């Protein structure tokens, strides 16, 4: 299969030989020029440009960044505004923010300063997952360099604008990636997510002040939007799916890795067979998790009904196999799954889907913060049931039981972790039910006690 060349906007320099993380290298490559330009613009104008660009959040939810920024009414607001960079990168299958932090930290910092300026924030934090110990050091060093050159601190480049940014390290809890959990953690508490509404960070965030939380990749895009203008940016990708995305591929492919393409420019088939060199050991593709482990799994041998806009503006429904689905936000969402954080996990036909789900379920059982009963208990029960099946003690009613538990979590919890832990179970069981059934013991192993009806 043909090999589509990458289009690298965010990762333009990251892997260039000789490109280093120090500020001099960044400056030699045109670094901080966009910041200089931004500081001459009206903050409201930058927000407008970001709106025009159509940029959608790269942290997973795909929420329009300009719209989020627009939620803060600067005419009325009297409280300080904070900007937080979500560098928790904890969704299994995702490793894109790592590339930026470890290889091009100043791009993130420049994007962050511009975003802070646009949102009139004077204090920002980069919340980085604790395991990125080296990444945190790189960022701290980069921030110190930026401070030295007056890209940070008081009266930045004579503009009258002040900003400080610090690094805050998490300590191994997935839930800190959820933006309100992140805020609680940064306030020095357990990372218990807050209920949205009313606690949308843009309204009541850090220290109960308006706060913008954006993903690492999102903040880097802002730099390029200010550089080329919102309209030019919107021409990259497809309508409503603008800009590039970094797709992280792992699992059973020959060349796992991260690849940057305009949204919608490449299909799963082109990515897996062309870019990633096909399935390892000459095996066949069985299933793909398209957007981090919480996204619903997609099956290679079934057809998906995808709505597609025709030239005359009307919409038609087309049947597509997994391999023909283009990678963007909307088409992947139309399959019932999501492109989420861009973490694509590939499984070949030698894989036991019950085992794979058991692995994922163990992750969620470990990571539930424990605030909501359905999530805390449900995630653990799903893991226990799957453990039992994998130990050879499956029962014929297990798939129904798993679905029953999963269906009682999603929509009944404080944060989207509830969905994150039930979607894999729902989709694996629905799409691969035969594998769950095959694992049931032939004889009825145990008497099942039914609750007494009152």
């Amino acid at each position, binding site marked *: 299969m043909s090999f589509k060349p990458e289009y690298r906007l965010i990762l333009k320099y990251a892997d260039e030989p000789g490109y280093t993380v120090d500020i001099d290298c960044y400056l030699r490559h045109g670094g901080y020029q966009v910041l200089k330009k931004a500081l001459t613009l009206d903050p409201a104008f930058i927000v407008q440009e970001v709106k025009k660009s159509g940029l959608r959040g790269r942290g997973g939810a795909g929420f329009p960044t300009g719209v989020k920024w627009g939620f803060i009414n600067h005419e009325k607001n009297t409280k300080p505004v904070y900007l937080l960079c979500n560098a928790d990168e904890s969704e299994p299958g995702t*490793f894109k923010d790592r590339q930026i932090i470890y290889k091009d930290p100043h791009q993130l910092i420049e994007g962050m300063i511009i975003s802070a300026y646009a949102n009139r924030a004077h204090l920002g934090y980069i919340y980085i997952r604790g*395991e990125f110990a080296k990444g945190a050091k790189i960022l701290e060093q980069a921030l110190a360099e930026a401070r030295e050159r007056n890209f940070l601190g008081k009266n930045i480049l004579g503009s009258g604008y002040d900003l400080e940014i610090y690094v805050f390290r998490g*300590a191994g809890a997935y839930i800190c990636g959820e933006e309100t959990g992140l805020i609680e953690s940064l*306030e*020095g508490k*357990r990372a218990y997510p807050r209920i949205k509404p009313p606690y949308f960070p843009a309204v009541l965030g850090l220290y109960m002040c308006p706060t913008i939380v954006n993903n690492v990749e999102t903040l880097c895009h802002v730099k390029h939007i200010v550089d080329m203008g919102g309209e030019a940016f919107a021409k990259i990708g497809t309508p409503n799916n603008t800009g590039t995305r970094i797709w992280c591929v792992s699992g059973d492919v020959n060349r796992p890795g991260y690849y940057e393409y305009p949204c919608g420019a490449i299909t799963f088939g082109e990515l897996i067979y062309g870019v990633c060199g096909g399935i390892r050991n000459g095996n066949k593709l069985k299933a793909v998790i398209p957007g981090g482990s919480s996204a619903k799994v997609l099956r290679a041998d079934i057809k998906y009904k995808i709505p597609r806009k025709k030239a005359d503006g009307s919409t038609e429904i087309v049947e597509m196999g997994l391999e023909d689905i283009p990678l963007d936000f909307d088409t992947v969402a139309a399959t019932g799954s999501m492109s989420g954080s861009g973490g694509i*996990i590939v499984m070949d036909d030698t894989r036991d889907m019950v085992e794979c789900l058991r692995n994922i379920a163990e992750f969620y059982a470990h990571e539930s913060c424990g605030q909501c009963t359905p999530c805390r208990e449900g995630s653990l029960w799903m893991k226990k049931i799957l453990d039992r099946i994998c130990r050879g003690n499956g029962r014929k009613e297990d798939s129904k039981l798993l679905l029953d538990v999963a269906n009682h979590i999603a929509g009944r919890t404080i944060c989207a972790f509830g969905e994150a832990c039930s979607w894999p179970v729902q989709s694996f069981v629905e799409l691969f039910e035969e594998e769950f059934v095959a694992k049931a013991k032939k004889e009825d192993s145990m008497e099942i006690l039914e609750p007494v009806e009152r």
Partner: protein
Amino acid sequence: MNTVEKELPQLDQEFIDEVNKIISQYPVSKRSASLPLLHLWQEHFGYVSKEAVEWIAQKLELEPIAVEEIATFYPMIRHRPLGKYQFKVCRTLSCALAGSYQLFEHIKKSCNACNEVDHNIYQSSDGQFSVEFVECLAACGNAPVMMINEEEWMNVTKDKINEILPELSKKQN
């Protein structure tokens, strides 16, 4: 200087300066410095003791329980000394597909980590090595992935482990 600092003579001026520098990064609320200070303590002393919690609480003018509750929430914060070399092997899907469970068993066996000292954490009798599973380390394209203390290792093989272990053992003497 407050009394607790005097009771803990190992807290040298450099450490105190570092503490104050960290606190200064949270001008709105000192409480925000709790987790960073727990990190700092662990970096210096290997784990977070009861004294650590009390000292940090006093420094930040908090009730000890406020620090205790976060020390017990975050998996990276340790409450007991572990191996000098701590192997943290990624357990999650992409690494599992690439053989991380087999790798885990191999490491455990190779460094004789057979005492379960904490939930699912295994340590060798000489205290040099501990081995545990952790969740996704955000390097899934280079599976299997692990950490030795704070250092990340990618595309790890059993051969690589066989190479590293003698070197680490040599270093201890």
